[in-house]
C-alpha cells in the first residue's frame, strides 16, 4: 500500500527548495502534477537546463539536478496568461487536495490564483507557499537563493574557523531543509484536513525555518546576553555545546584527506590516549574535560601531527575498535560507491528518464515496514504528461489538446 495514495498535488514548485518537498509526497504515492510554462519550456526552474548532464546533450529535459528532485512526478505545461489556460488550471485545482509553490511572494496571486481565489475554486484546499522571506514583513519582496537564506539567518556565520571569514555551506542547505519544512507543513495540513475537513494556507518562509534552527544560539543571547559574534567564534569544528575536547577534523596521510574525531567524554579520551601511547597524551591534566578544554590548541596540534602519519580509513578503524567516535571524511565517490551501509536504505536508486535513460538519484533515508516509498520513474520532460493528465483528469481528448497546443495554451 502507498501511504499517500489518492492525494493529488497541484504543484508549481521548482529548484530544490520546493521540488524536494513534493518529491517526498510523490515517493509515497501522492499524484503530483507539476505545472510549467510552455512559453519558455519551464525555464523558471533553472535546474532544467543546468549541469550535471549525463552526456554532451543539453536542453530543458536534460538537467541532472532537475531529474534528481522531480522523480515520480507528472509534468504538464499550461500557459497561465491565456484565458483557456486559467480555465484548465481551475479545473485541476478543483480536483486537487493541495497547491504547492515556491515562487517569489505574490507571483501566483498576480497570475490570478491567490489563496482567496483558490478557496473559491475549492473551499477546503490546502495551500503551501514557500518563499525566502515569507508573505509578510518588511522583506517580503526581497529575493533569495539558498545561500542568501543561510546568510541572513545566522547559518553561514556559524560555519567557519575562528578569525577567518565565514566558510558557510558548500551547498544550499536551506534549499534542502526548506523543502523538508515545506513537506512537514503539507503533511500536517493534510492530516488536519482528514480529521476536520478544514483546509488552510501555510505561509512557509525558508528564512524563518533557518532561524529556528539557531534557537539554541538565540537562547544563549536572550538569557545570557551573549552575542555569537565575539572573539574566537565561530569555533570551526570544535564542540562548544555540549563541550567536548578534543573534537575536530584532522589531516591524515594523502592530499586533502581528513579524519573527524569526537571525544564525547573522559572515557573516549582515555581510550584515545591509549591508542596514541605518547608522552603528551598521558598528561594527567588531560584526564578531565576542563583540562582538555583549557589546552585545546596544544591537543589539536599534537593530533594533527599524529593523524598525518596514517591513512584515514585505517585510523577510523583503529579508533572505532577502541570505542571512539571517529570517521574518515568522505567525498562523494567514496561514500556513494564505498559506504555499504547505504545499500540497506536503497539510497541511490536508478530511475528511468524518458530522455536521459537510466540515471541514479538521491533516494530517501527512511525505511517503512508497511508502506514503503518507491523511486523508479524519472522526472517529467517538459509537457510529457500533458495529454495524459488532461484526458484522465479532465476528460479533454486528444483533438482538443492538439487545438490547445496550436493556440499555445499547452
Amino acid at each position: 500500500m502507498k501511504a499517500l495514495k489518492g492525494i493529488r498535488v497541484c504543484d508549481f514548485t521548482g529548484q530544490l527548495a520546493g521540488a524536494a518537498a513534493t518529491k517526498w509526497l510523490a515517493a509515497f504515492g501522492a499524484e503530483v502534477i507539476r505545472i510549467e510554462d510552455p512559453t519558455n519550456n519551464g525555464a523558471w526552474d533553472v535546474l532544467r537546463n543546468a549541469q550535471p548532464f549525463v552526456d554532451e546533450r543539453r536542453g530543458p529535459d536534460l538537467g541532472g539536478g532537475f531529474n534528481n528532485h522531480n522523480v515520480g512526478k507528472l509534468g504538464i505545461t499550461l500557459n497561465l496568461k491565456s484565458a483557456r489556460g486559467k480555465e484548465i488550471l481551475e479545473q485541476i485545482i478543483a480536483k486537487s487536495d493541495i497547491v504547492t509553490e515556491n515562487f517569489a511572494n505574490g507571483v501566483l496571486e498576480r497570475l490570478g490564483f491567490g489563496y482567496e481565489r483558490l478557496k473559491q475554486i475549492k473551499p477546503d484546499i490546502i495551500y503551501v507557499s514557500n518563499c525566502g522571506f515569507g508573505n509578510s514583513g518588511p522583506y517580503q519582496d526581497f529575493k533569495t537563493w539558498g545561500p542568501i537564506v543561510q546568510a541572513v539567518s545566522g547559518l553561514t556565520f556559524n560555519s567557519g574557523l575562528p578569525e577567518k571569514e565565514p566558510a558557510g555551506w558548500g551547498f544550499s542547505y536551506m534549499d534542502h531543509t526548506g523543502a523538508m519544512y515545506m513537506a512537514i507543513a503539507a503533511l500536517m495540513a493534510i492530516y488536519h484536513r482528514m480529521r476536520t475537513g478544514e483546509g488552510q494556507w501555510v505561509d512557509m518562509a525558508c528564512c524563518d525555518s533557518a532561524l529556528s534552527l539557531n534557537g539554541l544560539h538565540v537562547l544563549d543571547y536572550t538569557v545570557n546576553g551573549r552575542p555569537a559574534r565575539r572573539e574566537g567564534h565561530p569555533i570551526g569544528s570544535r564542540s562548544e555545546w555540549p563541550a567536548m575536547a578534543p573534537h575536530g577534523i584532522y589531516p591524515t596521510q594523502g592530499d586533502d584527506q581528513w579524519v573527524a574525531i569526537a571525544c564525547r567524554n573522559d572515557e573516549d579520551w582515555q581510550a584515545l590516549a591509549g591508542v596514541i601511547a605518547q608522552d603528551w597524551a598521558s598528561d594527567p591534566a588531560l584526564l578531565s574535560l576542563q583540562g582538555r578544554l583549557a589546552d585545546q590548541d596544544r591537543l589539536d596540534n599534537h593530533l594533527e601531527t599524529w593523524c598525518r602519519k596514517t591513512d584515514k580509513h585505517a585510523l577510523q578503524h583503529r579508533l572505532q575498535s577502541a570505542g571512539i567516535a571517529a570517521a574518515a571524511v568522505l567525498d562523494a565517490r567514496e561514500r556513494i560507491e564505498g559506504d555499504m551501509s547505504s545499500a540497506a536504505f536503497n539510497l541511490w536508486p536508478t530511475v528511468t528518464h524518458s530522455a536521459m535513460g537510466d540515471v541514479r538519484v538521491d533516494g530517501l533515508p527512511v525505511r517503512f515496514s508497511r508502506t514503503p516509498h518507491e523511486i523508479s520513474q524519472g522526472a517529467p520532460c517538459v509537457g510529457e504528461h500533458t495529454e495524459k493528465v488532461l484526458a484522465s483528469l479532465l476528460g479533454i481528448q486528444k483533438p482538443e489538446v492538439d487545438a490547445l497546443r496550436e493556440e499555445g495554451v499547452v
Partner: protein
Amino acid sequence: MSALKGLRIVELAHERCALVGKLLADMGADVVLVEPVEGAAMRRYEPFVDDKPDPERSLHWWHYNTSKRGIALDWKSPEGRDALLKLIESADILVEAEDPGALAAASLGDDQLTGALSRLIHVSITPFGPDGPRHDEHTSDLTIMASGGVAIVCGYDDHELPPVRPTGGHGFAMGEHYAVMSVMTALIAREFDDGGQRIDVSLNAAANITTELASYTWLVAQQDVSRQTGRHAGTVLSMPSQHRCIDGRYVNTGVPPRTAKQYRAMLDWFRGLGFDKDFPETVFLEMGTQHPILELSKIGIDDEITAIFSAAREALAFACSRMTAYDFFQSAQKAGLPVGVIYSPDEAFEDEHFKARGMQVEVAQPQLGKDVRYVGAPYAFEKTPWSISRVAPSLGEHTDEVLSEIGINAESLRKRGAAA
C-alpha cells in the same frame, strides 16, 4: 485548534531525536518525554543559565524540549519497562534514538511493539540504521557530517585548511526532519487503514542526500566537487560570491542577474549610487540588458556571456567595497538583487523583518521568574498555529500526572527506584 491535538507521542530522551519531539509538540501533540531517573544526558549540555551547570538550567534542554511533558522512569528495570510498555500502549507514536538492540535488550523489541500493537507508529533514529555493516559504530554529530559527505564540501578555497563542520547540531537535524515527515506520512496512512508500522531513519543516509550538487554530480556525471570559501563546492573554481564590506562585515552576493530586465535593474542601481564612473566593466552590464536571458550553462564556453556574468559579479564586489554590509543588503535587495548580509543568529533574531514575522516569542520561564524570548515558528499555519505551550519539563515534573492517566501508581515505582 492544533494540527496534532489528541495525538500522544512517547519520546525516549536522546540528543538524536529531541528536535523530532519538539516539532510535533509545538504543533499540539501530547509528547511525553521519558528520561532516566537520574535525568537525561542533554540536561548536562552547555550552555547553562549564567554558565552555572545545573540540570534544570541547561539552555540546550530548554530549547529542544518545549511543549513536552516529562516523566522520569528507569525503563531498563522490569517494573519501569512494564510501565513504559503501558504508556506506549496508550500512545499513537513512539519516537526513539536508542542504539540498535537497546530496546530489544529491555524486552521492548518489535514483537512487543509494532508486532503486538497494530496501530503504533514506531520511529527509530539511528546513525546507520538498525542493521548493516556500520550499525554499531560510535558516532557524534561531527562524525555523521564527516562520513555523510557534508564536511568535505564546507570550508575554504585553501585546502591546507581543514574542512569545516557547520556548528548547530545539523548532523542530527538532517535526519530528524525526515523523521517528522515519516511520522506525518505514517499518520496519514493510518487514517486510511488504521494500521501502524515501524520506520527506520538513518542519520548517515540523511546527511548523504543533503549535499545537493555533491551527490548528484557524482551520480549523473561521475565528477567530484571541491569546497570553496563561502559558496557552493564545484567541479571548477568559481568566482567568489562572499565579500567583506567597509565595516568589516561580510555579505553573500548571490547569483548574478540572468535576464535583460534584471541587468537593467542592476545597472540603474549601480548608476544611482554613482559607482559606474569608477567601474570600467559597466559596459558589460549594458550588454547584459541586450540578452533576453543568459544561459548559465554557457558560462566558460561563450565569451560574451562569460564576460557579462563576470562583470556582474565584479560589480557586486565593487559595491561592497563602498558600503556597509547592511546598507549593501538593503540597497541591492530594493533594486531586486538577491543578496544577503551575513548575520550572526542573534543579529538575525533582532532584525525588524524577523520580529515582524513573529520570530520572537515570549515564554514565562519559572526558573527565572520572568519571560524569556525564544525563537519562533519555522512555518506559519493559518488555522492550526505553532506555539510553545509549555517550557521544557523539570525532572519528573509530570511523572505522577502521566502515570496516573494510565492507571499506574508512581509512588510505588518511586519506592523501588524505578521512577523519579
